[in-house]
């Protein structure tokens, strides 16, 4: 067999920033699996995999996703990669992965890290949503195992797909991180030591509560907000900040590579994770940023989705708000401004953070690829 990889990981996301792909590849390599990584060409070279095993597909990314996806599938076919397992890292990689499964009888693993037909970006696009749902239902019939991030996703997809494919829950957990002192954000934005740093990190998209968060900053003098990440909503937020004259309180970093992210995260005081209940995908959200904050020992303020509430309230590591509104956020931030409150949450985080590391899932990952 040509190539003869143990696992071929196909992912549409940028391999430098996509934590889930990075952690998966690293874990498989740790366990001596011969791994190939295939992504669109983002003009980056990931440092966690040998260049010989990284395949980038030159496609036009400046067009509608479905067109890019088709190009990507064609491009992957031309690579003629074979292996025991082919891993579709997202919905957009599934067609390409299906080809390898059919051609080389590889076992197909589908990482349904989101409910793709219920993405927030599709909430007003019924036809597109139905199209994705239809396509996903078809492609899933070729899948041998499905990976999801939480039980609720598995339950939803089981109903949607009506099949008996086994599910494996691989949570969005970050690798175990050593705690260290960092003034990364404080130095970068010249934030005084008296001020608290509120941190949002992740994709900057509509529905992530960022509007309300920025508006809450109008009434706060004891803290500054840093937004790490990029996304289609970034410019709107910058406009809002300018319009409200909040430039001195709200800072944007843009994307930070995953391997440098912890240095920034750990230098904040409070992590913020917000999802508005605008889509099923958001309602079931249990994002990696929550666990990244836990690894960095940051108390958190999160929206009240059951998935997050379960972690935040059961472990007593922060506050949840019922509604993603400025007033609720303001109250939570004010409450969290008390250093004793933060220290109590932090103490709890330090006790439980070992539970929420990617390493705890290694055995589950080995089970998926065996």
């Amino acid at each position: 067999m040509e190539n003869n990889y143990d696992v071929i990981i196909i992912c549409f996301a940028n391999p430098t920033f996509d934590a889930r792909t990075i952690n998966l590849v690293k874990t498989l390599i740790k366990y001596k699996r011969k791994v190939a990584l295939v992504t669109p060409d983002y003009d980056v070279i990931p440092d966690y995999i040998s260049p010989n095993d990284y395949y980038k597909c030159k496609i036009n990314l400046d067009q509608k996703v479905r067109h890019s996806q088709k190009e990507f599938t064609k491009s992957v076919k031309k690579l003629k990669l074979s292996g025991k397992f082919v891993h579709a890292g997202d919905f957009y990689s599934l067609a390409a992965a299906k080809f390898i499964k059919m051609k080389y009888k590889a076992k197909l693993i589908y990482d349904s890290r989101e409910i793709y037909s219920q993405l927030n970006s599709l909430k007003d696009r019924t036809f597109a949503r139905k199209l994705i749902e239809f396509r996903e239902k078809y492609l899933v019939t070729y899948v041998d195992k499905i990976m999801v991030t939480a039980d609720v996703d598995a339950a939803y997809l089981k109903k949607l797909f009506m099949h008996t494919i086994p599910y494996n829950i691989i949570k969005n957990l970050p690798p175990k991180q050593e705690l260290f002192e960092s003034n990364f954000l404080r130095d970068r934005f010249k934030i005084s030591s008296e001020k608290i740093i509120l941190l949002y990190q992740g994709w900057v998209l509509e529905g992530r509560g960022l509007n309300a968060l920025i508006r809450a900053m109008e009434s706060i003098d004891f803290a500054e907000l840093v937004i790490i990440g990029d996304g289609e909503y970034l410019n709107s937020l910058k406009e809002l900040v300018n319009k409200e004259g909040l430039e001195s309180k709200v800072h944007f970093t843009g994307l930070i590579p995953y391997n440098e992210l912890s240095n920034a995260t750990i230098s904040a005081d409070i992590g913020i994770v917000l999802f508005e209940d605008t889509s099923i995908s958001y309602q079931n959200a249990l994002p990696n940023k929550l666990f990244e904050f836990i690894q960095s020992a940051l108390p958190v303020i999160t929206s009240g989705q059951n998935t997050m509430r379960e972690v935040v309230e059961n472990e007593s590591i922060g506050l949840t708000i019922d509604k993603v509104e400025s007033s609720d956020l303001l109250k939570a931030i004010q409450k969290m401004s008390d250093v004793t409150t933060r220290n109590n949450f932090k103490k709890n985080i330090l006790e439980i953070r070992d539970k929420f590391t990617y390493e705890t899932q290694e055995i589950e990952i080995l089970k998926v690829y065996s």
Partner: protein
Amino acid sequence: MKIKILYIILFLLPILVQSQWLNKWEKVNIAGRYSQEAYLDVFFLPSNRNLGWICGFNSQVSFTTDGGDNWETVRVDPNNNIQLESIHFTSPNIGYTSGTNSENSLAGAIYKSIDGGRTWVDISPMLRQFYSIWGCYFYDDNSGVAVAGLVGCDTQIFFKTTNGGQSWTQRRYEIRSGTKLSDVHIDGNTGYGQAISSGYVWETTDFGDNWEIDFTTGPIDWAEELAYQDSSFIIPIAEGCQGDFAGYGGMLFTTDKGKTIQSKILENTVNMYGSFLINKTSGWVCGFDKSVYFTCDAGNNWENLNCGIEGDLDDIFFIDDTTGWVVGDDVYRTRNVTEVNKVISRDTVYICRGEVAELKIQPPDNLPKTVWTNCGRGNSYYTGDDGEYRAFAYASPCDTAFIYDFQVIYYPDYTPEIQSSSSNYLCEGDTIRLTVDTFYQSYLWNTGDTTSYLDVYESGNYIVQTTSPDGCIKFDTTNIVFNPPPKPNILPLTKNNFCIGDSIILQSEFDHHIYRWYNNASELISNTKTITVKDEGNYKLIAESEFGCIDSSSSYFVSVIIDSNRLSIEYTITNSFTFDTLTLGKKTCQKVRITNTSNVDYQLQLIKLRDKYYFAAPPSDLPKLGPFETAEFEICFEGDSTGNFEDIVEIPDICSPHFFTVDGVVAPFNFEALSKCDVPWTFTSIRIDKKHIFESSAPYPNPSNSSLAISYMEFTPKENVQMKVYIYDSKGIRVGELERRISGIEYYSNGKLERGEYIAETNLPTGIYFIVIEGNDNTESKPIVITR
């Protein structure tokens, strides 16, 4: 055109290994065949593949008892020419065949044999004049269903018998668009069954008593055969409700009960009548014009594999992967593929479970086509499953092909099992060695270690991945918990530095599984949580947790002083100080004597009352008693209801405090009077209701230099009363306020009882001041001297 019903029982057969490709058919001579008209159905008994039956026109049934090498033929009904469409045996001797009179399409008939097909009796449901009968199926020797219809496609009838055809019940259905039933099957264990008619598949869940439409198959075209497995159906079709349109023929394949249907339409009146499903994606159909089509991809592709066949066909049946039968104008069976093709190679491929094997052939150029028994094409085939695989390289299906056989075998599964060097509970500080068998080629622990063992010091999940001598990777995991030590700590419950003869109570701060107390001489003195110690020295507690983890407390030094109490008091806990009986609403004070029995002065300390509700202790300005001097102090008693009252007085002393009980009785008072009618009345009091009670001690210390306080006890009914305590100087000017500090609250049905102190830190100059207590409706003042 002849309409033929074909029938298959694939359900009782094992799943066939797919060696269907490139079968060659050979014609079989049927002895005694008296009619040259076509055979319409073929059936072999699953439990004995030597027993087979075929039936057809002119009431003709042939049977074999040697797997088809030799046949005998009988006429089922000498008086009628029955077009026998279906034949089915439930056991070697008992079987049924059904069909319709060729001369009268409304004369359906069903016959039963109890001697393996040699003789038959007519068991038709009713007079054979009103309906046609097509297929029948018996799920045991006596119980079965026959499908029938009235004229054309109007009414559908399910006849059912449970007594071998002695009597029948029937269920009739009409479909608006018209249809015609042809075939039926019922699972004798579950009662679930399906039937097929033109354009529809039916289902029953009660052994055929009731039926309903399960799904539609498309246009109302004649579908003569029911062949299904779970949700997969392979359906032969002929155009028109009865297949008599002389239009197209074809086949349908669905794997999801009709939600999606792959159809292949054959033009030129090539009607299809028989079908056989190998598995959920592979099967056959046969029909007119020597058509024997095979698909192995759920109907996406079909290939006519009819080498050796002439004429029209009506039914097809496979006993196993090399033995198939197809009947029609003639009877054919498959020839063993290895007889008609050439076996080139036999290879064995070993793989680890979970791996994919590439099976590769290199046929000569003159055999450009390749097909694998698992439906693959091309010279390479990938599989992750063990088993036998066969590839055919050929130029055309009827030529001799090269056969390449492969056997894929899994290497043995050597799954590691992590063994622990200790089966006991582990404690922090322990070390444990995890091991796996040593025959593996390599090891990889999640810690990065690559040895066959791992020494572990910390709690966590440990994973080992092993590579077997064959190169197969497996893993095992174990969770190791090192339990924390119990961390014992000694708490003194009573005063240390006590007088000789007294004792101290030491207690473990936390609960533990086992306690071991050691004295100064390292002797084990107790195994209880609490110990009483009289001797001076260091004491240590060694505790053991439920997991066997042991830890020691730090030493606790018990100090004993050589001294004795100074005071003598004539009352004790058991020998109480008793007040004279008090009348309700009155108050009394009585004196208690204290004697300094030592030859040195002794300053009396604050005398405390435990409850301080009905009894009042003396103020804090207590005297100093000279050697052997006796003093008295006063305890007051006031009850607000009748009954017995009790409190405990504590008087501090050098070594240990003195305790004694005070008690008193409040008696009711009686009120006697005469009513207007000179009737005497007597009232007895029970309780005095007070809305608010505030009792306070004298200020202390008195004189004071900087801080001063008063103790208070306050009963507050439900309405709240806020007492204020101020300091006034001798001129009546308010110079300060005392802060209220609550030490305890008790709640009662009629209010709450609160105790505590009013305290102030003051810089007032030396002088006489007054503590003024202000309530809602009364004010009380108490003098105090402040000295600087």
